[in-house]
């Protein structure tokens, strides 16, 4: 029952803050929220301990029978295996740090707003924990929908600002499209396999041959599930909500991007690894979508000027990497990247929050610069994050990204790699290094550009915090001299995350350079089938036949002499790529700040295309939003509602009215007419009786 406590603690925090938060001082409401998260983290650590032992057994805890209906028996059950162990530690660990950071970041809100913020934050974490702990599709779906709801609430937190509430709605609607796919996929899985339990589905799928030829039912189901994943994890074509999600408070961005929400899609595929492995076509689609998204988002990130938007596109890009890994069957590598990414992306979002905090809500990097000496802690931690994401060894991002690139080249036993995937992935890695260090140089190095523009919040900059009436930073930090470092409640999480960004990758040092890739071996059982007899009530650790057998054969191949050399070569290359990227960024934005503008001017159309994010929002607007609007207004509103529905109701009224118009002529009001008709009536009735 300890498992239940993990999502329950943040949920209790949510209830407390939602019910009484308005009347509580900030220290109590914020403190309670943080306490709930930290407690959840401690419980998670406690229940995770056996998982790291010699003989890890998945633990299952059935809370109650949720949907007892004929063939469909869905218990509300939580299951802890290797994969969910990693996820709950990330969600509660990073989540706790973000909660603590928020105490400092949001301290200028009013008491009730503060409590509202923390109640949403707790609810978010709670749903995410249900999502990762759920032992079947429906339980996962509860969390899946819950994080969608919370993202809507938190992105639109400054709901008095039009752009924020629009962004919230956009996130919700776009997610809905994906959820639709997820739901259909789930129903198809139930129709095919007759169960919704992850273990049961995996066992049933393993009994079938992989659908190598053509589109089978598994392929369709997994494609639908993948559609759900693209919605939650912001992949093409449903990535459009994530950059707009920057309208929310900065710690929320960190929470959405690092610890919760966007990782859900990757996690879902990892959770159903066996199912996806049986649909090679889906895997190819996933790999291609992932790598294209990574490249596209990377190029967009290159030219954005809003500090948070650069990070947002960076997240989309990194998620593309994770999907690339999933698509070539390297599930462990994808989850590994998810885990390291959580550290450095949370670190960079919180760091950008500290910058925004110091500059009174300014988010435009063109009005930053030279912040290194004002915000030393932020600078150094941010730099570590940037080095980690760029893939400089031996920081966290290097190992995970490298594993993915290696796998995208050589493939795994489940999916093929190809040189093209590797090449595009490497180009994206180069772009990552460039845009990240562009961000670093523009923000922290060079001449300060913020003083000249007078704080920036009166320039009508559309998506800055500055336009928000609910934002306290303007009033108190507006014009009082130099930017100052954030309070300890904000810097301490930054430091912890920076340490994490350095060491987190060490659990996955590949064998090629003398490591043991512990994370891959740790996660391995989670991607395999447990024997059917045990799958139901007591999931054991005994993994069955096919996959292990094939896995061993394959790992024999991939860890042979050639593979080791390949891996070492690729590692050298990607380190080189990262350093070249940093050098390019340094050249353009550090040594010669005018050079970048020159390139932007000379490339003309391309720059504009990237700056406007490939016009995808505009295309969607023209292709989907406007037609729907026109259809709704022209046909549904004026045609169906006003014409058909109102028309039929009014028509019934008019008909009755017309009929009574002629009938009421009978009512003359003359007493004698009434008497005569009465008399005639009686005579006729009597006559009828007498005649018959």
């Amino acid at each position, binding site marked *: 029952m300890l498992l239940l406590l993990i999502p329950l603690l943040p949920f209790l925090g949510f209830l407390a803050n939602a019910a009484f938060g308005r009347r509580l001082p900030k220290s109590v409401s914020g403190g309670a929220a943080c306490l709930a998260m930290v407690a959840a983290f401690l419980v998670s650590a406690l229940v995770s301990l056996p998982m790291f032992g010699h003989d890890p057994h998945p633990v299952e805890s059935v809370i109650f029978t949720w949907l007892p209906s004929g063939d469909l028996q869905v218990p509300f059950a939580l299951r802890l295996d290797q994969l969910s162990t990693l996820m709950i530690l990330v969600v509660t660990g990073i989540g706790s740090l973000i909660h603590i950071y928020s105490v400092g970041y949001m301290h200028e809100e009013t008491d009730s707003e503060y409590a509202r913020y923390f109640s949403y934050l707790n609810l978010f974490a709670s749903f995410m924990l249900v999502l990762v702990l759920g032992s079947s599709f429906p339980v996962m779906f509860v969390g899946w929908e819950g994080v969608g709801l919370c993202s809507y609430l938190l992105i639109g937190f400054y709901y008095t600002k039009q752009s924020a509430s629009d962004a919230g709605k956009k996130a919700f609607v776009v997610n809905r499209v994906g959820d639709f796919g997820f739901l259909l996929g789930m129903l198809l899985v139930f129709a095919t396999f007759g169960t919704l339990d992850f273990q049961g589905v995996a066992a049933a799928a393993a009994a079938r041959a992989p659908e190598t030829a053509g589109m089978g039912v598994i392929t369709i189901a997994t494609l639908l599930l993948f559609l759900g994943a693209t919605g939650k994890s912001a992949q093409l074509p449903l990535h459009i909500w994530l950059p707009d999600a920057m309208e929310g408070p900065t710690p929320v961005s960190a929470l959405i991007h690092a610890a919760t929400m966007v990782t859900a899609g990757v996690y879902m595929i990892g959770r159903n690894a066996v199912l996806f492995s049986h649909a090679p076509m889906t895997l190819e689609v996933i790999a291609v979508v992932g790598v294209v998204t990574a490249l596209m988002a990377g190029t967009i990130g290159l030219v954005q000027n809003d500090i948070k938007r650069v990070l947002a596109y960076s997240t989309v890009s990194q998620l593309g990497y994770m999907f690339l890994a999933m698509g070539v069957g390297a599930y462990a590598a994808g989850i590994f990247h998810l885990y390291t990414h959580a550290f450095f992306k949370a670190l960079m979002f919180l760091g950008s929050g500290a910058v925004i905090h110091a500059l009174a809500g300014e988010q435009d990097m063109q009005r930053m610069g030279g912040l290194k000496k004002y915000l030393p802690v932020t600078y150094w931690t941010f730099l570590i994050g940037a080095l980690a994401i760029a893939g400089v060894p031996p920081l966290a991002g290097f190992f995970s990204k490298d594993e993915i690139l290696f796998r995208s080249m050589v493939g795994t036993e489940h999916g093929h790699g190809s040189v093209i995937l590797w090449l595009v992935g490497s180009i994206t890695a180069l772009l990552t290094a460039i845009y990240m260090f562009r961000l670093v140089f523009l923000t922290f190095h060079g001449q300060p550009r913020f003083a000249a523009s007078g704080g920036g919040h009166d320039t009508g900059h559309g998506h800055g915090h500055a336009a928000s009436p609910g934002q306290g930073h303007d009033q108190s930090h507006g014009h009082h001299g130099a930017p100052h470092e954030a309070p300890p409640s904000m810097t301490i999480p930054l430091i912890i995350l920076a340490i994490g960004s350095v060491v987190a990758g060490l659990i996955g040092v590949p064998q090629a350079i003398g490591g043991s890739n512990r994370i891959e071996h740790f996660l391995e059982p989670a991607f395999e089938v447990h024997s059917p007899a045990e799958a139901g009530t007591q999931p054991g650790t005994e993994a069955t036949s096919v996959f292990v057998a094939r896995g061993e054969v394959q790992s024999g191949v991939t860890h042979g002499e050639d593979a080791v050399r390949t891996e070492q070569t690729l590692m050298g290359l990607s380190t080189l790529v990262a350093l070249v990227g940093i050098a390019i960024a340094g050249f353009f934005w550090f040594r010669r700040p005018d050079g970048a503008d020159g390139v932007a001017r000379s490339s003309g159309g391309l720059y504009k295309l990237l700056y406007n994010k490939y016009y995808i929002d505009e295309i969607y607007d023209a292709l989907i939003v406007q037609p729907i609007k026109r259809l709704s207004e022209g046909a549904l509103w004026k045609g169906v509602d006003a014409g058909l529905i109102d028309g039929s109701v009014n028509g019934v009224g008019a008909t009755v009215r017309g009929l009574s118009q002629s009938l009421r002529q009978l*009512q*003359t*009001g*003359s007493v004698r007419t009434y008497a*005569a008709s009465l*008399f005639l009536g009686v005579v006729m009735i009597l006559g009828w009786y007498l005649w018959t």
Partner: protein
Amino acid sequence: MVPLTHYLVLSGILFAIGTAGVFLRRNLITVLLSIEIMLNAVNLTFVAVGRQIGTVDGQIITFFVMTVAAAEAAVGLALVIALFRHRETLSPDAFTSLKW
């Protein structure tokens, strides 16, 4: 003994007179009187038939009819007086406001 047929013929004549009165007279009091004549025509029939078949049922029903007629006359006349106060006339054609 007067045969039944004569009573019935008389009763029919009385009923016809009453009916004609109801339809043709232009005075509500006369109309009420005509209704009384019709009721009495029916009473006559009841009594005559009752005597013919040798029971008192006809007479009992007649008593009921007379009682109801008395009540009806009281209510009817009260209504007539109220209507007269309202319109200063007793012609039934004056009271046609109970229509569309």
